[in-house]
């Protein structure tokens, strides 16, 4: 009975060690999925120390030691595999062997065996995809139990005199087996609980970060301004549950949500020197409210006393800050601190992406401007010249042409909307063709075949006119006897197809994508409808050049 009590005492010390270990930074590696070799070296020393301590804390019984040495190698084997288990077992076994006594060899051997056996169990669990069972206390119990039984069985085999060995086993077998098994189980259960806590915190914070990321995505694609900043601050406030959230640019507060919003007003200049410092030095500033107090520069009654200021940046350039506050009665949680920094990084990335998108759109717009500008001078003066000539013989026709020219020019200037209907596009093309027809007279024939149901079909503005202009400029105008431009619009297999073709077949260049004008039209269609749609150019030399536009059919 005395042996039993003594071993329970020793075991209790291990439990305390286990508890302290879990709270120490050395526990960190156990929370990750896999152990590095450096981690294993640490674990080797730790469990070897535990195991050797088990020998020292043992009770001398009949020239032997009743002890809890087995806990170390069993845990090492379970957690780190056969190599670690054997190493710990061997180290501790060697120590025991050097201690002497008639059972020295059997004790040393059995400790090594126990470590190896636990390691084999570890391998088995990994192989069966039950790695979560490594930290199951029942497994630890069973392994330590079997290990001690083997230990007891070995002792009479290797220890002489045999009778003494049997006598020893009779006394220590039950206490040692029970205390080692229970000790190993308790130790593992403490590690498991701590590990679960870590996992839960990680799950909660990554869940929050994910929520914020998802909700902020749409907002940020509109760029950052007072409205989007307010929406963002609301989301961060809701998801983190901190006392208050502020977003600033480099000079002013753009948004402030939470307690203290009566005097922290959006639109006012940045008052806090901390924020200025964060912007100036491009670094994270944290005032925990315990060692350092946040003092509100605006109001003495401000409830806030801890703050995290994270610079928001695009391409290493600070454009503002995101600030998280807690009031006096609430501790600023570490999880919120890392969340705050993580979110800001995420937002910085999103801003970079949205800036890139904006620049891409700007590029498309300027390309479009270029396209429009290309039309003007030559076409305009030739048209005027044509009209002046016609004026000599046919004033009515000249008047009609001038009206079409005005309509064409007005539309070219006025149509700032990015999207038009097919009808609007055709009107513009008709004005254009009316004038081109006068310029080329019998050298230009025009055929149109448009499904009237498609007139409301949406298209990027200036889709048709550049293509029709190409057909004339690069096609028909190069034919001595002239040619025909055809415009067809029809539905097929749930898509709308619009074709612009000429019978010159003069296209020379990249079949499929075509020249610059066609590429811009294609890019704009893809920007509006996605990559499944766009333009395709085909050419039969000297017979036909055809650009086919494919856009999704409007729901009618």
């Amino acid at each position, binding site marked *: 009975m005395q042996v039993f009590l003594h071993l329970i005492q020793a075991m209790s010390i291990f439990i305390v060690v286990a508890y302290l270990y879990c709270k120490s930074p050395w526990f960190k590696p156990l929370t990750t999925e896999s152990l590095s070799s450096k981690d294993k070296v640490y674990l080797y020393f730790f469990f070897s120390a535990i195991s050797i301590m088990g020998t020292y804390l043992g009770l001398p019984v009949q020239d032997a030691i009743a002890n809890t040495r087995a806990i170390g190698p069993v845990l090492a084997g379970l957690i780190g595999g056969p190599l670690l288990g054997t190493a710990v077992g061997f180290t501790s076994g060697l120590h025991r062997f050097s201690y002497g006594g008639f059972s020295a060899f059997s004790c040393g051997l059995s400790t090594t065996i126990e470590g190896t056996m636990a390691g084999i169990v570890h391998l088995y669990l990994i192989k069966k995809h039950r790695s979560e069972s490594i930290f199951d206390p029942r497994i630890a119990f069973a392994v330590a139990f079997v290990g001690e039984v083997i230990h007891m069985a070995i002792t009479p085999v290797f220890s002489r005199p045999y009778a003494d060995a049997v006598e020893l086993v009779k006394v220590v077998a039950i206490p040692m087996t029970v205390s080692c098994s229970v000790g190993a189980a308790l130790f593992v259960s403490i590690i498991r609980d701590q590990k679960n806590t870590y996992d839960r915190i990680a799950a909660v914070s990554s869940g929050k970060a994910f929520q914020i990321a998802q909700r902020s995505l749409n907002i940020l694609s509109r760029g950052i301004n007072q409205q989007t900043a307010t929406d963002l601050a609301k989301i961060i406030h809701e998801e983190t549950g901190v006392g208050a959230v502020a977003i600033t640019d480099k000079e002013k507060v753009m948004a402030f949500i939470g307690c203290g919003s009566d005097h922290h007003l959006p639109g006012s200049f940045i008052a806090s020197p901390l924020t200025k410092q964060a912007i100036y030095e491009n670094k994270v500033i944290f005032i925990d409210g315990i060692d350092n107090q946040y003092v509100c520069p605006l109001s003495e009654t401000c409830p806030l006393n801890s703050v995290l200021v994270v610079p928001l940046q695009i391409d290493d350039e600070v454009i503002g800050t995101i600030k998280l506050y807690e009031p006096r009665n609430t501790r600023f949680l570490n999880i919120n601190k890392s969340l705050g920094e993580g979110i800001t990084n995420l937002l910085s990335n999103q801003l970079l992406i949205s800036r890139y998108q904006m620049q891409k759109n700007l590029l498309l717009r300027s390309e479009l401007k270029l396209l429009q500008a290309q039309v003007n001078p030559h076409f305009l003066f030739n048209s005027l010249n044509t009209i002046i000539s*016609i004026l000599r013989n046919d004033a009515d026709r000249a008047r009609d042409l001038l009206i079409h020219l005005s309509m064409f020019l007005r539309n070219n200037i006025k149509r700032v909307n990015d999207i038009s209907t097919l009808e609007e596009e055709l009107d513009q093309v008709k004005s254009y063709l009316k004038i081109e027809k006068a310029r080329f007279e019998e050298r230009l024939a025009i055929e149109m075949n448009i499904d009237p149901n498609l007139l409301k079909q949406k298209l990027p503005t200036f889709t048709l006119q550049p293509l029709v202009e190409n057909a004339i400029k690069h096609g028909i105008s190069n034919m001595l006897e002239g040619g025909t431009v055809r415009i067809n619009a029809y539905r097929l297999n749930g898509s709308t197809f619009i074709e612009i073709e000429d019978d010159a077949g003069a296209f020379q260049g990249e079949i499929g994508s075509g020249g610059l004008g066609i590429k811009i039209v294609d890019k704009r269609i893809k920007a509006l409808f996605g990559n499944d749609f766009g333009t395709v150019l085909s050419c039969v030399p000297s017979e036909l050049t055809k650009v086919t536009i494919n856009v999704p059919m409007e729901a009618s």
Partner: protein
Amino acid sequence: MIRTLIVDDEFHAREELESLLLETGEFVITGKCANALDAMKAIKKEKPDVVFLDIQMPVIDGFEFLGMIEEELMPHVVFVTAYDAYALKAFDENAIDYLLKPVEKDRLTKTIHKLKKSIDAGHRPAIYSNPEIKRIPCIFHNRIKLINMSDIEYVRSSQAGIYVVCPPGEFYTELTLKVFETRTNLIRCHKQYLVNLDHVDEIILHEYKQAEIKMKTSKLVPVSRRYLKILKEKMAF
């Protein structure tokens, strides 16, 4: 009276210019052409004093066109263009003048003045020392087809006109043999033939200093005694 050719691909532009020129009472219009090929024909036939030339025309633009006209036939040139991006270049080319469409009457009066001064002084029209001609406009299926110089095996002249011979066939062109001889890399081998040495397979020598060229496509081109020596030198015999 100044004998004048109008070249512009737009019908109404030609009509308008004709009206303006006739109103001044200084011009006789010898022809109106819609493209460079017709214009070459008209210049050979009518030998006008001046050509009013649009720069942007189908296939062969005004500048390229001028580079394809024989020196003896070169008229004075007035460029007429809708857009003044070409104006500077036109002056580089030593044109008498350039006019912007729509043409203003007073501006035209100045042009006439310059033109008459130049003609009265007996100035020869400026020569358009264009770089080597790289592509030859030919008539094909009612279109102007451009044939790369490197694709041409030889050029022959016949009763019907000048033909460019390439592996796929023969094409009619308005360019003269003289222009081919002076502004392309073709070598004269006969009174009626110029040959592209890159396409020559061998020269077959016959008796009495007669010879023929065998092209890589096995076509035969006659060589006259007069040009045989030069040809041999060129081929580095």
